[in-house]
């Protein structure tokens, strides 16, 4: 099993969720995060004081999937979240050793 972590622009969340539903991935956990990358923050001025806004609001999705879904999931996210503009975000994949559904105690593939 794999865990896919996608950091995307917040307003793309709905579209990504729909793209994932379309390929039958319907579980995920979402966090509001601040991103720092090539997309540079802007400077805001409040009454003569300048503030550098380094971090930009992003949304992080964590999606546990079975191994064979990896490519289609990456593809779906990538397509839905892409705007061709800097700051679109990144996807990270790592290996999951175990997954467990709390309600039933199921583990492994059924639990995903």
């Amino acid at each position, binding site marked *: 099993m794999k865990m896919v972590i996608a950091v995307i622009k917040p307003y793309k969340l709905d579209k990504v969720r729909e793209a994932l539903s379309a390929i039958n991935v319907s579980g995920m956990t979402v966090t509001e995060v601040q991103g720092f990358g090539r997309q540079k923050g802007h400077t*805001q*001025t*409040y*009454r*003569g*004081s*300048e*503030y*550098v*806004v380094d971090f930009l609001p992003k949304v992080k999705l964590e999606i546990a999937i079975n191994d064979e879904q990896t490519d289609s999931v990456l593809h779906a996210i990538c397509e839905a979240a892409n705007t061709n503009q800097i700051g679109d975000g990144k996807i990270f994949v790592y290996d999951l050793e175990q997954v467990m559904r709390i309600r039933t105690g199921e583990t492994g593939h059924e639990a995903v």
Partner: protein
Amino acid sequence: MKQFKFSLHPILALSAFSILLFGGFPEAALAHHHDVLDSGDTSWMLMATALVLFMTLPGLSLFYAGLTRSIHVLSVLMQGFAIACLASVLWYLFGYSLAFSDGGNLQNWIGGLDNALLGGVTRDALIGTIPESVYVTFQMTFAIIAPVLIVGSFINRMRFPALLWFTALWLLLVYFPVCHWVWGGGWLSSLGVLEFAGGLVVHLTAGTAGLVSAILLGPRTGFPDRLKRPHNLIISVIGACMLWVGWFGFNAGSAVAASGDAGMAMLVTQIATATAALAWMICDWVRYGTPKVLGIITGAVAGLVAITPASGFVGPSGGALIGIAAGIACFVVTHLIKQTFRLDDSLDVFAVHGVGGALGTILCGVFAAQSLGGVGLHADSIPAQLGIQTLGVIAVFAWTAIATTVVIKVIGLWARVRASEEEERMGLDLSQHEENGYQMG
């Protein structure tokens, strides 16, 4: 003493003014001397008092609180609240007496102690057409707001016990005397300074004290280039709106009557606020390419401040012009202080209240001219009046700067004034009060 007292703020101002104009007290002014309670005037002054308190609590506190970081937000609210309580008690103990009772030989400088513990302020005592109890409370709200204004200069870094000391000593050394000079029959009132509602007494004192204490305490950690943005501008906008509404009590209430003067004070206040806010908005737009929320509300406050000393003397067009001048001048000085002098007068108390108060006091000497719709200065008495106004500004600035320095230095003898880096970093909410503003979940 009643006779004397009656002629106080701003009736004194008007009277002094009449002397200038007509070489003597006009009948109309004297007619008031019968001292009969007028329920309409009383009604308005009861309400004006509530409005000024409202303008401070929650208005000013919120205006400031929104501009701090979320880890200091309670400390700002706490400071406003505690100052309100402490100033009320001091006013009751001796403040009113020092400001408004007869000072005997020292009358030019300070009042006496005849009214300490509000002795003599009985149910029947009148000031002009209203109960003295109302006048006491109305003036009390002015003594409350001045030190709360100063808080904006040293947010995030003054320790709470020091703040209490500061409040008490500053009221004693700065506010009560200056209030006496201008409205209590002291030397400035004898000179005939025009000061309707607190441009000198409240705003210039607070602005100057803010500047001085910002310098003495030093900047916030992170100033000027690693500061955090205001944490909640919504709160600041709410505060600014409350300031605006409450200021009607401040200015129109200073007529101490539900009269044509009060009405005109309200009208010019509204107009000056609007033009100042728009002026600042345009400055932002020109300078930064965008009209800013924080800009327009700050401009509104600048307008409110600047019209304050003038509100009883100028007409609608005078108000409009004073507003525009204030919006631009305070915008410029804000940038000077922050960007050129690199002083961390954190919430621009000097640039808005000091400059606004001084500007309004001086311009009042011009726009009070009858030809400009004002209450009636003759064109040829303008230079003289301008001199008096400027003298008032300089004297109040100088005294406040010196006395505030003394106050802070003296407190430093027994209390730590500035929060430690650790306390600042934890946030004053936690380090001073062991509380958090927000607690989600």
